[in-house]
């Protein structure tokens, strides 16, 4: 019979091989699902993962989608390493977009060198405020941050809907639920003329490298890691848990807010009722796929960005429903967490025998 047996140590090989195995299993399983839906499996997986890159502007679109995922995934990997379970980045993303977008709408005539930095600051502060509130509730009332951060995500979404359909609605917008277009000075600087490749695409990997250094090399990062792995040892060392919870929520919230601001000022150019196609939740998968390592988050962010493009392609080319993206991502997270059993355990075939 097949037996699961503890290794007694963490396998280095499976540390890196487990996400790859998860990816292969996800491909196989979604292939089966597509077959059940009456589509040829090979073609569908090809449409999902390869075709988007072969299109003109394929890589450009990928980078634009990946940037917010990487920014949020990096913040989350830091928080999760410290056992701070922020799952409301979607809300922090939205609040960042509202705050930064609000500045853009209020001062459309301000010069670019003032307006864009002010939006960046407002967006980041908005995300930090949303994350900080969650930290405060956990510390002050011992409220579980998994619940509070998720609930704030919904509250923020409704705040956005209220603003965009109410006071901030574009008077010349024929009643559509959207704000006026931002002025040109409010748009994120482009790296390449006439494309969507904005400054955030450069910023995201830089933030990942910076936070990797912080987490692995600095005293502050060490405190996060100890708090996550052995809270009592953190206490013994004199690391203050409350302070670390604050910092983790402010960083992950702030990065989500920044990602939200860059999304509206870099790609959308206005606020609408649907700013995020679930970026905040996808970022959770990104963080785990990247092994909660900020450097690993970069390829993980690119991959999950690809599933968004693939979902669009599957809708257009194969007539599959939009939910396919969510299904694909869900299967991936399932296998990711499942394959991690191989880190500390191994399977062994044991013939039945009498002792």
């Amino acid at each position, binding site marked *: 019979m097949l037996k699961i*047996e*503890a*290794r*007694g*140590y*963490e396998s280095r090989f499976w540390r890196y091989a487990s996400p790859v195995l998860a990816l292969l299993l996800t491909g196989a399983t979604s292939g089966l699902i597509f077959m059940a839906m009456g589509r040829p499996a090979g073609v569908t997986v090809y449409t999902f993962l390869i075709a988007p890159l072969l299109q003109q502007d394929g890589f450009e679109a990928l980078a634009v989608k990946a940037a917010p995922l990487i920014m949020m995934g990096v913040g989350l990997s830091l928080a999760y390493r410290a056992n701070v379970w922020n799952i409301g980045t979607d809300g922090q993303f939205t609040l960042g977009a509202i705050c930064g977008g609000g500045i853009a709408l209020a001062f459309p005539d301000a010069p670019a060198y003032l307006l864009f930095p002010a939006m960046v600051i407002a967006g980041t502060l908005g995300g930090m405020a949303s994350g900080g509130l969650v930290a405060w509730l956990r510390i002050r009332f011992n409220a579980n941050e998994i619940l509070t951060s998720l609930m704030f995500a919904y509250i923020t979404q409704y705040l956005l809907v209220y603003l965009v359909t109410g006071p901030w609605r574009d008077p010349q917008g024929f009643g559509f639920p959207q704000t006026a277009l931002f002025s040109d000075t409010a748009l994120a600087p482009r790296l390449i003329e006439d494309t969507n490749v904005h400054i955030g695409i450069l910023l995201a990997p830089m933030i990942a490298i910076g936070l990797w250094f912080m987490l692995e*090399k*600095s*005293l*502050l990062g*060490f405190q996060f*890691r*100890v708090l996550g*792995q*052995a809270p*009592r*040892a953190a*206490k*013994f*060392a*004199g*690391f*203050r848990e409350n302070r670390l919870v604050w910092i983790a929520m402010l960083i992950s919230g702030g990065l989500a807010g920044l990602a939200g601001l860059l999304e509206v000022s870099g790609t959308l150019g206005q606020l609408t009722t649907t700013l995020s196609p679930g970026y905040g939740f996808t970022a959770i998968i990104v963080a785990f796929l990247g092994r909660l390592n900020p450097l690993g988050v970069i390829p993980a962010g690119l991959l999950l960005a690809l599933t968004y493009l693939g979902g669009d392609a599957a809708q257009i080319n194969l007539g599959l429903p939009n939910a396919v993206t969510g299904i694909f991502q869900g299967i991936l997270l399932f296998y990711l967490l499942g394959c991690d059993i191989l880190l500390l355990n191994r399977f062994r075939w044991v013939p039945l025998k*009498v*002792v």
Partner: protein
Amino acid sequence: MNDTAPSGPLLKMTGMTKQYPGCLANDHVSLTVERNQIHALLGENGAGKSTLVKIIYGVVRPDEGEIIWDGQTVNIQNPGHAQRLGIGMVFQHFSLFEALTVQENIALGLGLAKERLGLRERIVRISNEYGLPLDPDRVVHDLSVGERQRIEIVRCLLQNPKLLIMDEPTSVLTPSEVRKLFVTLRRLAAEGCSILYISHKLEEVRALCSAATIMRLGKNVARVIPAEKTVKELAEIMINMDLHAPTPRPLAPVSAPSRLVLDKLTIRSPHHFGTDLKDISLSLKGGEILGIAGIAGNGQSELMDALSGEILAGKPENVVIDGVPAGHKGPHDRRRIHGCFVPEERNGHGAVTTMTLAENAFLSGFTRRALVRFGVIDTKKTSAFAETIIKAFDVRTTGPKAQARSLSGGNLQKFLVGREVLQEPAVLVINQPTWGVDAGAALAIHEAIMALAAGGAAVMIISQDLDEIFVLADRISVIAGGRVSEPVLTRDATVESIGRLMGGGSAPAASGEMAVA
């Protein structure tokens, strides 16, 4: 228990082998327990005693080997099967629900409704018969540790076992409770229930057991009659080296300044069922070792946390380290004023087991060893510090990059004690310095503590091991029910006088014993 006894040994195990990943826990071990025998299983931590016992109790399946129980070859499937065969076990750590009564706890352990019929009467009868006084209606969290152990024993005896396995039963008992337990065990053996007694307390084994199987590194090394050997000889067989006693040391001069002062320290325990500290006043001079004796769960961990700064005191003056009021300072700031600490639990408290030794050296050493530059970890210096500890304390490991969990208990404890001692503290507080540590490592730790005191530091050791306290301490206090007794000079103290103070906190135990007498 009154079976017409067939001849031959009760339990005969041969060639027992169990391979864990990376560790051969039992390597062709044999064990024979005769009828009516109290048989000791001796060995250091990690010698493979627990694995062997888990095989007998059906918790672990062996890879090889034959078990003959009562003349029959058996293949013990699980603990339920072991119980049906007549094997009972009292674990070192009890599994009792604090909020339930004695009877409820015992009933929970019995599977079938019919087994619960007349339970109360049977509990009372067995506890009277074997000198194990128990009130079935008392709630467990009011009971002393000794009484809790009695529940576990009675629970086993209800099954009419032929073999009772006891894992380190005396580590939680006062000397007088130990004597009572021995009376019970001798009586059980005489009536036909053999006892397998696991311990590393050699005096006890000599007094109680008529045969001993000694294990080292997963193998049998000897089968002896304990009474025919001295404690020193037994210890030497156990660890395979010559033991020498730590060198004695002169007392601290009376004029030396006080380096650690506790003044009316009162702490509410942050834990459910924890022990509050009440009005503790103590003073330690430089060069002095103060031993705090006591039975587990009488406020030791609260005292440790209050000294290390994990729990803050009400007023700064409650804890004074080297002349600086520190009651409101956290662990980090107490290290700055030359206080160092070794908590009882190694895994996850004193050390992060999933981190490397270098990272663990950094954990509490970064302040005093200046291992941080501009907020960044100085990896070179950190690694060098870990290397120094490994060398100075003879820590058996592959180097600073080894994960803490890859070390044996004794080696990790040497590393943690070394980490604090090498920070040259003015005040060192250690909770259970050699808990679960082999004799060789214990000796090294004792010598390091003495050397540190000889260098002028004030050392407080909190320990449940009276032998250790008598060897190390200049003065002894006892912690019972969260209060600490007036220290007495070790040379004026006896095991009996300290033992009386240790039991002093638990009045219920005393009244229970009266009922029997």
